[in-house]
């Protein structure tokens, strides 16, 4: 319809700028019909509106709103700390308290911590119990079988420095003589709440040292 300045301009103006009702019928899409460019498609064309970029704000945030930008190491550290899988390595009495922490009363699964028997697929090794000199080579072998990044929690007094059995010469006075330890938990045996606290401390430590070289 032609735009003529008559007394009926207001009525004709609304019908012309009404974009929701199409002026042409919807094309039939069939395998034989040729494709249509998005700028000519009746349903798509109205959505591709041109904008003028404003200075002071990143271009991608104006074009694609709803996207967050974070440093890569923060993302990696946050995902690693939220899904620590400990290897089930209970040696002695502390193992019973470790099992109690996994169970329904003091649930550890809500932190993403799932006990996993294989060292090849776990992140954390909880050394729970006394390490004797007969067992020490096995502990070292299991630590070396774990892939990086890996952490060690030394649970209980016996793994820290020998505990009540420190005066016997067949007992290794602390597991940190064979493997490097990140968190020490005191107690004989430590309460389940203490073990949960040690996991939270380990999570803080993972977030703090996320951009340190050498921690792959």
């Amino acid at each position, binding site marked *: 319809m032609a735009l003529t300045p008559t007394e009926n301009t207001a009525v004709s103006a609304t019908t012309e700028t009404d974009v929701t009702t199409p002026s042409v019928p919807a094309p039939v899409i069939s395998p034989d019909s040729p494709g249509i460019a998005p700028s000519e498609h009746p349903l798509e064309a109205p959505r591709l509106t041109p904008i003028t970029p404003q200075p002071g704000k990143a271009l991608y945030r104006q074009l694609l709103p709803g996207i967050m930008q974070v440093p890569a190491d923060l993302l990696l550290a946050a995902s690693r700390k939220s899904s620590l899988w400990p290897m089930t390595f209970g040696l002695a009495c502390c193992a019973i308290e470790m099992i109690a922490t996994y169970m329904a009363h003091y649930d550890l699964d809500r932190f993403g911590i799932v006990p996993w028997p294989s060292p090849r697929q776990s992140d954390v090794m909880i050394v729970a119990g006394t390490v*004797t*000199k*007969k067992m020490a080579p096995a502990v070292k072998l299991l630590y070396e079988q774990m892939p990086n990044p890996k952490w060690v929690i030394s649970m209980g007094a016996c793994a820290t*420095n020998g505990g009540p059995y*420190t*005066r*016997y*010469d*067949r007992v290794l006075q*602390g597991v940190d003589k064979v493997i490097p330890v990140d968190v020490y938990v005191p107690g004989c045996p430590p309460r389940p709440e203490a073990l949960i606290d040690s996991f939270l401390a380990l999570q803080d430590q993972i977030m703090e040292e996320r951009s340190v070289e050498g921690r792959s």
Partner: protein
Amino acid sequence: MTSDENVDTTNGEEASEIAVVDSLEDTIWPLINRVLSSVDVTPERGSIDLITQIPRSDIIRALQILKDNEEVQFNYLRCLTAVDNESEGVDVVYHLYSIPKNINLTVKVNLPVDDKTIGTATEVWEAANWLERETAEMFGITFNNHPDPRTLLMPEDMTDTFPLLKSHPFAEIEILQGELLGYDRENQGDDE
């Protein structure tokens, strides 16, 4: 035994020694004496059970008699261990129990300090197998003809010392990083 709790023990010991020899009639000593008449046995009254001392040369024969005899039938070996008496030698102790008759007996054998060998009791009870392995590696005793003389609890590279002998020392408590702990006063000015 006397039932006073706080009596001075030195006075009571002589009195109880005289009582020991007379009052063995109410224990199983007459029965054991009759069964082990061919063996040289010395009895003693223990806190609960009867304790008998048998010389080393007769021990396996005596244990076999105690197991097979119909009157006593000691078919259950409760415990087998040793006690180190320093200069007087090492005592090997057997605790026996008879399930049909419900009687207990303790048998002790003294070994001299320089010759700690004795026959094995696995010929009599199979339960003695692991118990003897453990006693051998803790005290340095050799059990002749043992079917499996390996170590049980010790690591393979620490078999030349015997922990439960009185001459074996306790480990010293290590003070880790002793000098580095605490404030290092001499190097205080370096960081500033």
